[in-house]
């Protein structure tokens, strides 16, 4: 971890909710008493364009207002970005990357330009479709970010997200249950890999 605490970089495509996931992560991490930052890098505002979002989470006041170039964790919400964007640029080899893909970590590794740190994969599409009936991968990827970074215990995360979703989806409460289910399914799906990596 750098002097700024935990630094996370999100890669997604416009419309997939990577920015929302970063803001939600800041929101729940705040509940642990931490100092937080969650912010997107704005480029062309169009569906499908590569976008980047960032989190800093620290026990100390955060004053730096630049983007994150040496993250501890990278979350890739769209697998097709692996060929379009250098997602592991500056990523600490003591850190980790999480990719939204049906493939295994072993299958993804060759696409990561020799990245030596931990690699996790989550089938965010399948989890989202099973839990919600629609492909909104940001909830699974948010859960994965929490599971891998250990920014807060699972139980606290689940409790806080229930409250966050109740607020965020006040006008469409029917999606809350599905989103909560997606979070829990992601933790379950990642458990074997986290155990193998000594992170469970």
């Amino acid at each position: 971890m750098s002097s700024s605490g935990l630094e996370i970089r999100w890669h997604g495509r416009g419309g997939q909710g990577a920015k929302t996931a970063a803001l939600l992560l800041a929101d729940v991490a705040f509940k642990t008493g931490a100092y937080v930052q969650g912010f997107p890098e704005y480029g062309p505002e169009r569906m499908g364009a590569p976008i980047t979002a960032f989190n800093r989470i620290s026990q100390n006041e955060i004053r730096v207002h630049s983007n994150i170039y040496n993250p501890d964790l990278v979350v890739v919400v769209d697998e097709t970005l692996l060929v379009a964007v250098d997602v592991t640029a500056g990523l600490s080899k003591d850190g980790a990357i999480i990719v939204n893909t049906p493939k295994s970590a072993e299958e993804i590794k060759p696409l990561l330009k020799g990245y030596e740190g931990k690699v996790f994969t989550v089938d965010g599409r399948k989890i989202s479709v099973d839990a919600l009936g629609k492909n909104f991968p940001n909830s699974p990827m948010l859960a994965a970010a929490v599971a891998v970074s250990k920014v807060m215990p699972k139980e606290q995360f689940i409790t806080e997200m229930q409250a966050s979703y109740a607020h965020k989806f006040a006008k469409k409460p029917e999606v809350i249950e599905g989103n909560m289910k997606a979070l829990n399914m992601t933790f379950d799906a990642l458990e074997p890999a986290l155990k193998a990596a000594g992170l469970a």
Partner: protein
Amino acid sequence: MAKKDRMSGNEAVAYAIRQINPDVMPAFPITPSTEIPQMVSTYIANGDIETEFIPVESEHSAMSAAIGSEAAGARTLTATSSCGLALMWEELLIAASNRMPLALALVNRTLSGPININCDHSDGMGARDTGWIQIYAENNQEAYDNFIQAYPIAEDPRVHLPIMICQDGFITSHAVENITLEEDADVKEFVGEYHPEEFLLNPGKPVAVGPYSLSCYAMEARYNQAQAMENAKEVIVEVAQKFKKQFGRGFEFFEEYKTEDADYIMVIMGSAAGTAKQAVDDLRAQGKKVGVIKLRVFRPFPAEELAAALKNCKAVAIMDRTESYNTHGGPLAAELTAGLYRAKVWIETVCYTYGLAGRDFMVETVYDIFNELEDVVENGKKVEQHKYVGLRK
């Protein structure tokens, strides 16, 4: 009791507006404006505040309606960003010359071209000579705190000038960060009720607003306006002191960060000041005597105060997040070097242009700049007096 929360800079300003409950908010409701009018209109729709929201067809109309409303005696504000402020240009001068103490929440974004939506200070700096008070913020907290201080400064009878409360586009406006929010009642009490001395809807004391003036009197009006800006200096300090006493936060014209024994000082505005402070801590850990002055108030410009704060250092880096095309530095550089000259403070200055159109400003850039200042002083290195940092190689 104050509460700890987290929100974006836009949310923070909208929250302050809700607590103040101003009378009228004319605003152009879509891009290039910010989420601020949208959030305020939600508060209005939910019945949280009684502010009259006027959706207008352009920013020129937004500022025109704001002037009309303020002239009628209503506490008024608007919000905009980037080319929206540029479209207000004509009316900005009219608001100031008519001595309308209205508030504008400005989210600083660049002006085209190339077409770009990201942060720099070219919008606010373009309006620096329109007669508005300008206060800049490092983060969401300061944007919130500054907005609470806006009306007590602007409406003071010694001042009666419009005020722009600025924050960095996206970098703070769209970033969720920790914040301390004060109680509604405390904010309301701090801001107070608005009782204009003179206003149009006052049959007992008729006034003319925006009249024609021949050269026999127009210059006196300008002189009075300049005097009001001069008076604003003491009022800004008073309000800042009162705010600090009540809420425990804030600065007067600027924040001095580890400058007391500093050989090298960076003068900078907005969100980049936080990045610079982190760099100062890193360099101090290596034994370097460096510091940062974060300028909060750009109009009125605290030239004498800055010169006094800089007089003991060896060199200063003056940081502009805009270009003024005068070929020797941005607006801050031009005004600060003039201020140093007037105060006979003969120190090295290097004027840097950084962060244009959203170019990121990093801790490492601050290290490089302090190293360069040291090189200038210790080794007599010759550097351009005005240079860009962060350019592509």
